[in-house]
């Protein structure tokens, strides 16, 4: 992936409706990795201040999909599994996605205190194919 390709992938991601609506921003994309930041609207947090799991799931999937696309894959995921390690607090959550192979991407989410709050794996049915 050339710097121009990366810049274009980053621009396209940031311009998507879902990214804009959920406060997602691409910080980095390479051949096999993507880093996405989510700025959490304080109004959407749970009463205890935690970021809702619904938003963490969306962040995880979007980061994984970006990494897979950068690696040359396409199609929609066939499954996503997440483990929620601890509550995510603060106004920012970071997702680091890493392409393991053509159909598997792992994601690690860190909250504003830089603590791992969740991990995820996203799989596609076949390289380049839809589920």
């Amino acid at each position, binding site marked *: 992936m050339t710097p121009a390709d990366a810049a274009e992938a980053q621009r396209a991601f940031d311009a*998507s*409706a*879902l990214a*804009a*609506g*959920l406060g997602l921003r691409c910080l980095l994309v390479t051949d096999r990795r993507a880093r996405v930041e989510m700025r959490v*609207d304080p*109004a*959407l*947090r*749970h*009463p*205890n201040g*935690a970021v*809702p*799991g*619904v*938003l963490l*799931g*969306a*962040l995880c*999937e*979007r980061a994984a*999909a970006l990494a897979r696309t950068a690696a040359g894959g396409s199609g*929609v*995921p*066939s*499954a*996503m*599994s*997440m*483990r*929620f390690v601890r*509550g995510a607090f603060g106004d920012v959550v970071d997702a680091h996605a890493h392409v393991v192979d053509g159909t598997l991407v792992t994601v690690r989410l860190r909250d504003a205190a830089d603590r791992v709050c969740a991990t995820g794996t996203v799989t596609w049915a076949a390289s380049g194919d*839809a*589920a």
Partner: protein
Amino acid sequence: MVGRLSGVPATDFRALRELLDGLPVSAALGLRCVEVDHGLVRVAMEAPAALLDGEPTVPFALVYGLADAAASYALHTVVAPEDLHVTTELTVHQVRAPARGALEAEGRVLRHGRRTAFAEVRVSDPAGALCALGSGTWAVVADSPHSIARHHAETAP
């Protein structure tokens, strides 16, 4: 209430439904409870147009969120209001990418104990066809100051 974790009395299901529909994240994602019963919640999602690009299908990111919400909401019907339940693990399989429109998820509690609960969820597309199914585990934290229902009761006017 029969026991500590025996759940919200049936007469409270209407209040529970209002509580869940009133959560900020429900409004943001277009989630609305259509049925609340003991151990079972059906949630409809009409994703806001602002979250959708020109794609003909609903993104899996939102399908997963809907599944998580439906299963978590179902836990609200069996866990005592003063207790907190948090998702520890959830896997959702996408059978087919759903067409845009109102999706519906049915979350069902399979078993709940004093510390752990298990639930499953099925998501249907606008035509009623199965598009995703999942299952997960929730941790139950007894008598938590962070219980959403407790917080709601304490802050309600």
